[in-house]
Structure formats: C-alpha cells, structure tokens
C-alpha cells in the first residue's frame, strides 16, 4: 500500500495519545455478555449438529484435500518434521479438525502446490463417484 500523503498524516505521538484517549473508557458488560451468549446458543440450536450445507460440502472436501497435499509437501521439504504433521494435526492441539485445515490453508503458499492440490481434489471427487 502506498504511504498516505503527508497532509493526511499525524505525528506518531498524537496518534498514540488519540488511541489511549479512545481506549481510556472501560465498560464492563457481563449482563450483555451473557445475553449475547444465550442468544447465540438459541440461534444456532436450530442448526443440525452434523450436517453441512450442500454448497459447502465440496469446499470442505477441497480444504481437507488441500490439507493432505500441503502436509505431504511440507513433510517432503522438511524430512525432520514431527509425526503429528503426518496426521494433519497442524496446530498441535491433539485433535484433527477444521481448525487444522484453516491453519494449513494459511501455510499453503508454496509455488507448485496448487497443481498438486487440484490433482488430489480431482482424485477424491472421482473416488466419491462424481465428476469434478
């Protein structure tokens, strides 16, 4: 991003004081916290616990396929990598779930990886009995 013209910049010390001034008002909102939390629980209670919307299923398949390929790719370039990587527990939480796919997606910037990801997605889709 290009730097802003000087005419619309402020000295750093003024900006820091503005930030502190804006953040100087603390408001504790335990009652609101509770009500929002209750509202969220009630709202999402209507959602099935396991079913993914149809339009998202392929995105999830793609993400998981991408995570497999990226894991293999990373292991290949770094042979000493921990065994947890092989199990796709990217964030080391001990659980393999959607958060690991997010973590891998963030890591997956290596050149050439996209072609491998696309190929594996194609294989997974074919195994599933549907054309990509």
């Amino acid at each position, binding site marked *: *991003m290009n730097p*802003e013209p000087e*005419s*619309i*910049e*402020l*000295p750093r010390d*003024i*900006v820091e*004081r*503005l*930030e*502190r*001034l*804006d*953040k*100087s*008002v603390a*408001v504790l*909102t335990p*009652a*609101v*916290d509770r*009500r*929002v*939390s209750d*509202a*969220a*629980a009630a*709202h*999402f*209670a*209507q*959602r*099935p*616990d*396991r079913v*993914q*919307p149809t*339009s*998202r299923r392929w995105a*999830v398949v793609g993400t998981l396929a991408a995570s497999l390929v990226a894991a293999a790719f990373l292991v290949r370039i770094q042979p000493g990598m921990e065994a947890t990587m092989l199990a796709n527990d990217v*964030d080391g*939480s001990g659980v393999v*779930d*959607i*958060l690991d796919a*997010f*973590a891998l997606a963030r890591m997956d910037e290596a050149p050439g990886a996209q072609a491998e990801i696309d190929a594996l997605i194609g294989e997974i889709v074919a195994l599933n009995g549907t054309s990509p």
Partner: protein
Amino acid sequence: MSNRRLDKLSDAELVALCNSGRRQDAVDAFDSIYRRHRDYVTRVSLRFCSDREIAADVLQETFIYLLRKFPPSGDGLVLTAKLRSLLYPVARNLTLTAVKKRQRSEHTADDEPDHLPDPRTIDPEYENLAKAMTGLSSRHREVLLLRFVDGMRMNEIAEALDIPTGTVKSRLHFAVGALRNKLDIT
C-alpha cells in the same frame, strides 16, 4: 473447541465457522467474534454518546444483528471487507438512533450528542487533545478516529461510512489540518 484455538483464527475463518460449522463450533466461533470485537463496538458507541447504558444496549443489538446474518441453515454472511467495517456503521447508527430516542423522550433541544467524554473528566495529559477533538466537526472527528485509532484504510472507511473514497480523503485532509491548527502543530 477451546477459546485459545479459536482466538488464533482470522475473522473470516470464524465467520466461515458461524456460516457452516457444526452447532457447537458455530456457537463458539460467534462467542470468539463477540469477545474479539466487544470493546471496539462499545468504544464506537461511546464516540457518539456519553451514556454507558446506551452503549451497553448498542453492544447487544449490534451482535444480535450480526447473529441474524448467520441463518441456521448455513451460508449466510459473506465477508468482503474487515468485520469492523461492517460493525462500525451498525454500532454508530444504533447509537445515534438511541440518542435521538432518548432526547425525544426527555424533551431536550440538543441537536448533536456528545461525541467524547467531557474533557473535564479526562486525565490532564490528554486534556488538550480531547478539547481539540471536541472542537472538530463530528464528520472530521469520525474520519480521524477511523483512520488513526481504528487503523482503517481509505477504502475501508469509505465502506464503513458508505461514502466515496475521494470524500474520505478530502475529509481526512481537512480534519488533520484542523487538528494540527488546534494543537499548534506545524
């Protein structure tokens, strides 16, 4: 999912979980979004009024509004900009509406709500700055805070205020000039 793990996710990833995650994951993700942006929404409200009761109501209504963007069936909100660009106008407009409602019910004649805490109650270190900010027009004050405190880019401010980017630049140019004058900065 633990809060610690969710806190590592970006807003876009949390929104994706709210959209199509399993029931408990969606609840946890929404809770994480709320905790992440709660103070920001409260501060935005307090920029337009000095009433903490209104700010608390606005906080709740803002997140209930956001919650409704995630239909139970999934596939709801599509995040095209920073989440704060979405939350800002909601909190701002809810605050202004609440202030107007209160003014009507109290039969007061003020046209414009307080935008910052009374300078007399502020730490002396910030007194000059607070007075200078209070002396600016509400539009100038708003773009200054969005740019320098919230760290928004020009296009994000434009989206949050629903005005052209050129207008943002122009307002910001004049706002910075006015603040520099008031603070005697060359």
